């Protein structure tokens, strides 16, 4: 019963956050100068009267409140509206882009999380070692380098200068599809995935190291050592699970940053995902597309955060009590 109540409260909070984000996006996008017909019929040959007719035909001449009410009504029925630049329902555009983003983000998240935990565990358990100190400084450096710089460096180095990886897109033109296309997909995925994973991994590693350094001196760890349990077993069986609890919370908290980072990574590597859809939508003032994209992204972040919280509770003995 208590669990159900918690879940309901969490869902209500999530709905409120979603409403706020979507409403703010809706208002901001519409208040931004320009309109979608600058892109669709932006040619100087299109008379202004024609543009006005197009605006009216798409309901963009209505007051903002009317447009918002119309949008909310449609959204409640599961309709995200019509993409003016793509000339198809927003849901269809997003349905095409979302799987591509998941193909990029899920492995990046898993690699970043596991890699960060592993590196952080090493740093936190063996802080005096030169390799730990070197990793710590490298982590600090990586934290100070923006995602897009890492992405461009990977693009110009391993991809362009060395020719080890393809430069962009998800597939080589006319490469095999289906299962036979997986090696090609993995080659295309490697650099953007690495660029995205490294930013998450760096954050996770630092928190993991800090958390483990605390746990390392905890009483139960010292007792385990006194009982002669091997260090490796103490780390993996006793200390790490304890030190993971705050790290999992951090992983949930950095999820929005990862989503934000993926926008730039997708642009640099021409990855046809949600980030590109949203950025192109903003540039073209495709209102419904932007709001729909932001809505879907917000839902993903909320679900991700909820899962992280659930995982944290499952790992934390105090949470289970």
């Amino acid at each position, binding site marked *: 019963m208590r669990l159900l109540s918690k879940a309901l409260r969490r869902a209500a909070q999530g709905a409120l956050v979603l409403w706020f984000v979507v409403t703010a996006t809706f208002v901001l996008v519409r208040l931004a100068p320009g309109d979608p017909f600058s892109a669709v019929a932006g040619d100087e040959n299109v008379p202004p*009267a024609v543009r006005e007719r197009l605006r009216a035909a798409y309901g963009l001449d209505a007051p903002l409140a009317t447009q918002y009410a119309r949008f909310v009504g449609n959204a409640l029925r599961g309709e995200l509206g019509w993409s003016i630049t793509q000339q198809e329902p927003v849901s269809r555009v997003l349905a095409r882009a979302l799987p591509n983003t998941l193909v990029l983000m899920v492995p990046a998240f898993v690699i970043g999380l596991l890699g960060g935990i592993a590196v952080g565990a090493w740093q936190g358990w063996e802080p005096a070692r030169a390799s730990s100190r070197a990793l710590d400084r490298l982590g600090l450096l990586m934290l100070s380098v923006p995602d897009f710089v890492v992405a461009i460096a990977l693009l110009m180095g391993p991809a362009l200068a060395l020719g080890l990886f393809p430069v962009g897109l998800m597939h080589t033109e006319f490469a095999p599809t289906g299962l036979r296309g997986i090696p090609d997909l993995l080659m295309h995925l490697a650099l953007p995935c690495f660029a995205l994973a490294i930013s998450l991994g760096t954050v996770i590693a630092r928190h993991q190291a800090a958390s483990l350094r605390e746990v390392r001196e905890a009483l139960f760890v010292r007792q385990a050592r006194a009982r002669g349990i091997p260090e490796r077993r103490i780390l993996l069986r006793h200390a790490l699970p304890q030190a993971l609890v705050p790290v999992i919370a951090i992983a949930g908290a950095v999820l929005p940053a990862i989503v934000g980072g993926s926008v730039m990574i997708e642009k640099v590597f021409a990855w046809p995902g949600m980030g590109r859809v949203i950025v192109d939508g903003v540039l073209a003032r495709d209102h419904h597309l932007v709001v729909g994209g932001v809505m879907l992204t917000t839902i993903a972040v909320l679900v991700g955060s909820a899962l992280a919280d659930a995982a944290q509770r499952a790992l934390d003995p105090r949470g289970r009590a």
Partner: protein
Amino acid sequence: MRLPIRLLPFALFLACAPEGTPDGPVGGTIIIGAAADADALVPSLVGSIPGRVASELMFERLADLGPTLDVARDSAFEPRLAQHWAWSSDSLSITFHLDPKARWHDGQRVVAADVRTGFAVIRDTLNGSPLVANVRGIDSISAPDEGTAVVHFSKRDAEQFYAATQVFPLPTHLIGALAPGALRASGFAKAPVGNGRYKFVAWEPRVRLELRAFDDHYRGRARLDRVVLSATPDPRSGLARFWAGETDVWEPLTPPDLPEAARHEQVRVVNGPGYDYGYLAFNFRDPKDPAKPNAIFADRAVRRAITMAVDRDALRRALFDTMALASYGPFTRPQPTSDTTITQIPFDRAAATAVLDSLGWKPGADGIRRRGRTKLAFDLLVPTSSGIRMRAAVLLQEQLKQAGVELTVRSMEFGAFRAEMAAGKFDATIGGWRTTPSPSGVRGSWGSDAISGGAGQNAGHYASADFDDAVQKGLGALNPATRRSGLRRAYQTIVDDAPAIWLYEIRNFAGVHKRLQMPAWRSDAWWLSIPEWTVDPAQKLPRDAAPE
């Protein structure tokens, strides 16, 4: 085997010819890199270059401009869907006789009703066709029989024939029943059935578009099997893909790209005359209250003095090195009516300062000129999306400072930039126009009729009865000499009035993969020759393999 002696030359020719047809090898793929996806695939709805590339390979006109690019003579046009044509005795209609072999990609014959449908699509305002201004002179199109389309004009005009060729026939049997304004969202617009030498295969919006050679085309099959348009949203990444050989064509190249091109052995740089010119336009109206004249730029003498203070040659060299030429006015050199003998306002900073002094604009303690309480200072609006314009703004700022003019660069995102332009909320802006072989665009860019046009048109509110009259007379003239002299008068008028500083005319540079062999590069529409491009058999790549 023995051959009769009379067949020997023919046999030798065949032996020497590359594989495929006697005219060259068949097969291969071209991947065209682009920073944006096609905005539409139906030519009447297209506004972007990628859209034009795709749609003009899938759809043909009644006739197309030949190498002379002279839009005022129908003899400069080559037959396409129309085999031949004839003028009426009063020159108010042209009868086009369609090629009976012309077919849509679904096998249906191209008929005269399709020409009428193409015209109706442009005229339907809800479709927002960018071609609408080009066909303004066309009154109607009739179809007396399946193979004959008659284009009727409201008045005689030097570009009547050109206007008729702006109408792309569209398949009546597929779109004839669509409601007004429904074409953009129709299934046809997403997977069009054309009549060109390439047919639609697949479109993944924002990612790639694939076309394949149409085997049964009435003018013969295109030589390359496939054309792929590959969109890369970040131009740096797009260029990197081109350097890496993932794409075959990248256009345009900029000065920093040329040394890089030399480092990639598979890259060939091609160039041709350019159709783009750049300018700094002054706003004649007060940005805060468009009903009032601009406190600085309403004065012709001030505009001329500021123009005189700008070293356009130095600016052009700094921005483009040798990749741009001096601009002489609102036209480009490849246009048949261009005139590089137009008298220019020369660069003369001493004279500029003297004029400003004489007009009462005296330097203040900070070096900036003032007249009464008005400072000789203005904002220059530039879009952040254009690195060239951003750099030009900074260079202009420095040059004008030396004449006591304060310029503040106001840069903003492209959508916001357009909105500010449309609202007239700017003192001056750096703009660029892409012209066409037809000089008529000058009316839409600088004519007083275009003042109320909003974004992208005559946003600076330049209005000159003399200029309008000269343009009208020049464009309306049927005699080539009268046409040239009329437009020369228009160009001289606008240069003397200085509503803008004509900064540069950009030459067209592009990179092409060396294995591709092609006819001469046609800058205004290089893609039109793609059906004639071939792949050197010795340099074929895996992607050149025949489609499955």
